[in-house]
């Protein structure tokens, strides 16, 4: 174990809604940071540095939103750095916070995630600008049509069906009913999913995530300071990996297929290696995966090495990833039921920490000791993976 291993003291998140008209951006951050500090039984004076996570600022409508919001949570005077790796931002920020501690630079770090997508009249119009301006933007590929391409490839690659996707949607929506912070609280049936509006074949409305306003915050500290606490989550391992930009370069080679993102495997392998995990299916207790579309979650089972090549659907068909299954995935409901983009990775990280601390409430996985949290950015391009544990080693 690292001498300066980082430990998570607490986690706070806001209520997630399509539009949080009751608060401004800074107030949203204040809500999350206050909750995290209270959950950590600490105060802002104990924070040595801040990592701020927010994805494209076009969503907020404010350039450099970290500076705009600093006064709202007491960040003024502290070192503050803003991290942005698209949807992976929250995961990257959590790892950045850990590195600041592990390097010995700081003892206690606050990681803050914010996204206020409601300020943008058309989120997909923003997403369209992520593509190459000369060759691709005119094609109007966006996140939904891009993931639809992945889903259609998954149908051929491992036999993905509408039933598999519907099962994932229902599992996550059911789990969200147990999570008071989830954006969507809705009883749905498999038939509801299969009859929902088609948005880009084969994706339907209930295969996708909502647009959410919200914020999240995590307090991390050094091993020495964590030793005085009775209940913390330890960051045992972390990985970060980037794929090539062009989808065409990822369609098929000896180790890659558009259906199964290899960069998630690279990130997980790095995290597993650091954490000493050799058999993730049997060693992990719970997973909080960043999968905003139901088909992505199925593909990720293989990327996370829970299933052999082409057999991720076995975990769906056996119900293994249900809340009471052998390897629960997204007991919180995941980002299919709340997706404040730049903060989402941090929510996954915080939820995984709560699980190994035994404080996840109604969606607690019994006896959770080792959890994986992931995040994804770009079109399956940037991935992070973090292993949270109930014990330091």
């Amino acid at each position: 174990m690292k001498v300066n291993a980082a430990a998570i003291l607490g986690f706070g998140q806001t209520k997630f809604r399509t539009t949080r008209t009751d608060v401004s951006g800074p107030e949203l951050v204040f809500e999350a940071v206050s909750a995290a500090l209270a959950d950590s039984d600490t105060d802002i004076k104990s924070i040595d540095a801040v990592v701020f996570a927010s994805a494209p600022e076009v969503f907020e409508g404010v350039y450099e939103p970290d500076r705009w919001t600093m006064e709202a949570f007491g960040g003024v005077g502290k070192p503050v750095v803003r991290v942005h790796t698209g949807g992976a931002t929250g995961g990257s920020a959590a790892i950045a916070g850990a590195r600041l501690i592990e390097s010995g630079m700081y003892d206690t770090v606050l990681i803050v995630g914010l996204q206020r997508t409601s300020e943008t009249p058309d989120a997909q119009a923003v997403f369209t600008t992520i593509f190459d301006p000369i060759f691709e933007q005119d094609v109007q590929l966006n996140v939904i049509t891009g993931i639809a391409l992945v889903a259609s490839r998954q149908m051929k690659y491992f036999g993905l069906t509408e039933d598999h996707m519907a099962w994932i949607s229902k599992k996550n929506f059911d789990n969200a009913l147990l999570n008071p912070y989830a954006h969507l609280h809705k009883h749905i049936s498999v038939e509801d999913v299969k009859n929902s509006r088609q948005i880009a074949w084969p994706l339907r409305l209930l295969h996708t995530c909502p647009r959410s306003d919200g914020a999240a915050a995590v307090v991390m500290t050094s091993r020495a300071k964590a030793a005085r606490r009775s209940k913390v989550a330890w960051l045992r391992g972390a990985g970060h990996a980037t794929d090539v930009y062009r989808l065409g370069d990822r369609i098929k080679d000896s180790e890659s297929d558009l259906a199964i993102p290899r960069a998630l495997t690279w990130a997980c392998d790095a995290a597993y290696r650091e954490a000493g995990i050799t058999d993730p299916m049997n060693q992990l207790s719970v997973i909080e995966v960043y999968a905003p579309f139901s088909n992505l979650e199925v593909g990720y089972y293989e990327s996370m090495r829970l299933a052999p090549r082409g057999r991720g659907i076995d975990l769906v068909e056996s119900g293994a990833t249900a809340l009471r299954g052998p390897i629960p995935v997204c007991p919180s409901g995941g980002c299919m039921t709340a997706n404040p983009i730049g903060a989402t990775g941090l929510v996954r990280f915080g939820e995984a920490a709560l699980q190994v601390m035994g404080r996840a409430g109604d969606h607690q996985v019994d006896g959770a000791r080792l959890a994986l949290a992931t995040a994804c950015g770009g079109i399956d391009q940037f991935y992070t993976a973090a292993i949270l544990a109930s014990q330091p080693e």
Partner: protein
Amino acid sequence: VALKIGIAGWSFLPPRPEIPGALDELIYSATSAALEDAALSIQQIDGVCMASSDLNDGRAISTMTLTGSTGSFRKSEMRVCNDGLAAVWLGAAEVGSGAADTLMVCAWSKLSDVVNPTAIPVLAMEPTMHRALGYHPDAVLNLRESQSTHSLVFTTGVPALEPRDTAAAVVMTRPDHPSAGRYQIIGFGSSTGPYLKPDEPVLAPTQRAVAAALKSAGIPVSDICRVHVGGLHRINSEEIASALGIGAGTIVREVPQAADLGYAAGLVAMVNALNDDAEGPKLILSAAGLGMESANAVVLVAK
């Protein structure tokens, strides 16, 4: 144990009003030359930490399309949306934590592609109460200066920012890495100030960042032989020298002082310091934001 970071190589494209070529080509020129200077291949680099602005680059998640030129394929990619010295600071944490033995830090500015660069900083203003006033960031500074000096300070007397294209890259390593060269970074500091608040001296965040960097380096300011400044274009060197307790003659500025290098300013200042033959510890600092409220500093020494 104080954190020390080795430097294996560096490179930059000297700032110019326009450097022909695509953004990818600018970045690739800097990163590939830094690798050559370090005598390392991209396969020997563990991760990349970069500083870039979506709005300056002209698209959301702008680094998506830049993986090839930054060299982050199959590696950790950390990206900050602050000045390049913040990328140095966070990159040092990656190396210092043991997560990376070798790390590419890069930053760039291609403001010649931006139709109206001065429109971007205004978007940092609070949208409901302040932005509609249409203040230019220089006007904000002037108002603060007027308030503190009880005199009128006019924007018309201030040189306008001059947008520049540039790209810079530095290869950082463990201090005991075989590729580590003559220089080491031994001090890191960062601080922030309030958002447009009157009464806070404009250079207060810079003073705090510098104090933290010197403290972590374990040296007094009197030991500093040269101060390389990135950004702070509106603040004259005498004022900076006075705030830091150093002689104005030790300060090195970008030429012209009004050059706008975007988020690359701090990293370009660092490359300038690496290219500076002066003997003794060097301080590199940058400050940015509407009120220069985000400041970073590092201390560089020759082994």
